[in-house]
């Protein structure tokens, strides 16, 4: 266990003040900390290291889906319910950035009007800033800041279109995938690769005609996913099952979790109660089954690997610079003076021997 006073000692004076103010409930300090995380301002890691001990209390929900499915409106409706129950909420809304200029228009706040003016709802918009992979790190770190601040519920909202987004929602305990009616047949759903990440599915805009079909498609896919032969006995998975039934979200016979499909009309607040209920059910399932503990371990593992990769990548950059920079090296490869394998071998060799030496000299005592 790390003594908090040790991590505090590493903080700069300004960051120590930020740390105190954040824990004191100062909104501007929280905003500032997230900016430092986003900018990777020198010292931000020490700040997060100090905050780490204060985290782990919030319940984190990920909401993902294609653009225009109504995620922001849904998050707004959900936030309103949590507020009415007296809980504080943090929202991280992620929008893509332009691959050309790095600029972005972050419009999720527009749909989050029903709790505007309520400071106990902290909404922060983030963009990719052209840092593939880095965004998931920044998101996980911003979640930590909100968690340490004392938010009861944290919602991470992102457009679901690729691996990066999958990484992001995986910082959550529970992932809700939002689909809109008529978003294509079951093959589209398979292709999108969203089935694997959803702990529950929301068919928003359920007042549209195609809603029942989309719900049926989703349910079929979910049941096939869980037990590939289930589709053969159509007992209660027939068209009748298209009605939204939050009970579906209960643990099934073998104690596993079957993702429920919930119909909502976020603009009218319909189905939001059921969604909140299903989110709570999933939380309870995580606790009861011990799966929550497993998830937290996996998240910590992902985080460690990510940090390690980032820092090793940074070391690699330094090595490259010391060998005359990437441009010189790549020119020599392009001109066939050498080959990429030899170059990399030469670059990595000193690192490798350093690793060999350190492993030989002091074998790490395993504490656990």
């Amino acid at each position, binding site marked *: 266990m790390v003594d908090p006073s040790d991590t505090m000692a590493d903080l700069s004076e300004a960051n120590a003040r930020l740390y105190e103010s954040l824990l004191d409930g100062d*909104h*501007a300090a*929280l*905003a*500032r900390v*997230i*900016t430092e995380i*986003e*900018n*990777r*301002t*020198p010292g*931000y*890691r020490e700040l997060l290291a100090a905050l780490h001990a204060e985290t782990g209390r919030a319940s984190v929900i990920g909401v993902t889906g294609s653009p225009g499915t109504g995620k922001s409106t849904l998050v707004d409706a959900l936030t309103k319910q949590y507020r009415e129950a007296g809980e504080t909420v943090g929202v991280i809304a992620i929008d893509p*950035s*332009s691959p050309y*200029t*790095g*600029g*972005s*228009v*972050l*419009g999720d*706040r*527009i*749909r989050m*009007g029903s709790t*505007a*003016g*309520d*400071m106990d709802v*902290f*909404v*922060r*918009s983030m*963009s990719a*800033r052209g*840092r593939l992979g*880095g965004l998931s790190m920044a998101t996980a770190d911003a979640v930590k800041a909100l968690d340490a601040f004392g938010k009861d519920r944290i919602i991470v909202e992102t457009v679901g279109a690729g691996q990066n987004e999958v990484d992001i929602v995986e910082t959550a305990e529970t992932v809700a995938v939002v689909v809109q009616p008529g978003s294509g047949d079951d093959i589209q759903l398979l292709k999108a690769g969203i089935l694997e990440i959803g702990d529950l599915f929301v068919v928003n805009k359920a007042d549209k005609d195609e809603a029942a079909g989309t719900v049926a498609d989703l349910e079929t896919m979910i049941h096939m996913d869980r037990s590939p032969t289930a589709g053969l006995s159509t007992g209660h998975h027939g068209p009748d099952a298209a009605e939204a039934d939050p009970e579906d979200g209960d643990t099934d016979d073998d104690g596993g979790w079957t993702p429920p499909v919930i119909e909502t009309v976020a603009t009218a607040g319909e189905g939001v109660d059921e969604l909140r209920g299903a989110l709570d059910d999933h939380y309870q399932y995580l606790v009861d089954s011990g799966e929550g503990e497993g998830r937290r371990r996996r998240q910590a593992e992902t985080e460690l690997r990510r940090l390690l990769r*980032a*820092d*090793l*990548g*940074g*070391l690699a*950059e*330094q090595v490259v610079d010391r060998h005359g920079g990437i441009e010189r090296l790549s020119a020599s490869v392009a001109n066939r003076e050498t080959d990429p394998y030899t170059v990399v071998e030469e670059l990595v060799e000193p690192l490798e021997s350093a690793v060999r030496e350190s492993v030989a000299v002091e074998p790490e005592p395993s504490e656990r």
Partner: protein
Amino acid sequence: MSADHTQRATRCLVAKVGLDGHDRGAHVIARAFRDAGFEVIYSGLHRAPEEIVQAAVQEDVDVLGISILSGAHNTLIPKLIEGLESYDAFENTLILVGGIIPDEDKPQLEAVGVDAIFGPGTSIEETVEFVREHAGSE
């Protein structure tokens, strides 16, 4: 040792405040700022000053651009600035006003803390350049 590269971005809140439904100008500015590589948060229409303050504080923006064509600038803008001050967020924020502001009102707005006023006919480049020069120099 950490291998992070600092990645700063200029963050702007483009805000419509009060009973003013004309958002073409705000959209044009939002788009121009995006193309300039800024991160733009758009508030949406009909926001109360407190909502804009909340957004500016939480988003920790470098620039607050207020678009106003309703004529209510003399009441709304001081309210916004007071709100920012109450969160200690005034000093670090560049405050721009765009829209229809009569010449005789300008000194008063500048006195309460508006950094620049861009009326009709201002070129996009001029606005972007102003932000590049003055934003985030805290």
